[in-house]
């Protein structure tokens, strides 16, 4: 059987039409909130799993690399 998992923190951006910040800025807003909520630092993270629309609908290829640093995923595996 698999190992037990738990959600230890969450974060959201402010909702609405958000052309006031860039795409990575927006990701960072939610990720910072999640880190703060969980009370952890990037050193506590082994890997990052992301989900988004298909690249074409985001206007760029490999969009997860575009905001990898905003997710604090630098030097870590991303799925």
């Amino acid at each position, binding site marked *: 059987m698999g190992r037990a998992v738990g959600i230890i923190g969450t974060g959201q951006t402010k909702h609405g039409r958000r052309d*006031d910040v*860039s*795409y990575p800025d*927006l990701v960072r807003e939610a990720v910072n909130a999640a880190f703060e909520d969980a009370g952890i630092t990037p050193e506590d993270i082994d890997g990052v799993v992301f989900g988004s629309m298909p690249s074409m609908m985001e206007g760029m290829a490999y969009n997860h690399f575009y905001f990898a*640093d905003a997710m604090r995923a630098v030097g870590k595996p991303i799925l």
Partner: protein
Amino acid sequence: MAEEKERPRTIEAVGTAPFEMALGPTWTRFFEGIKEEKIFGTRCKKCGRVLVPARPFCPRCFEPMEEWVEVAQEGTIVTWSYIDYTYFGLEDDMIPVVPATIKLDGTDTGWWGVIGGFDIKDFDLVAKKVKVGGRVKAVWRKEKRGCVQDIEYWKVIE
């Protein structure tokens, strides 16, 4: 009455997806600088690195980068290449092209630019003039659009 088997066909399809990408406050300010022929970076208060183009946060320390620094328009070639064939998205009149990573003086990261200002169709001349460690200087277009292409090319300083 066996008919000759038709080769499986393709159909042509075109997908169009127009986008309006939000620049956010940092890149908006950066491109305003570009319109005035200024290159701005931001400095991380934690690691002290100056990154260009200006960034909202440090990708190593994850701290906000709020100190703005106008950086030099001269730098050193870190690496370069020579592209003399077309591929998807390139027109014939766009080649050859000499892309380079340039470390602008006073910064801690590479800037992507194209080297020009002489006959780059002559590869031997390119190989003679363009060197890793060589110095280059920004040459601006007269008409600005507020984008990185406002720097027309990087001129080799002899």
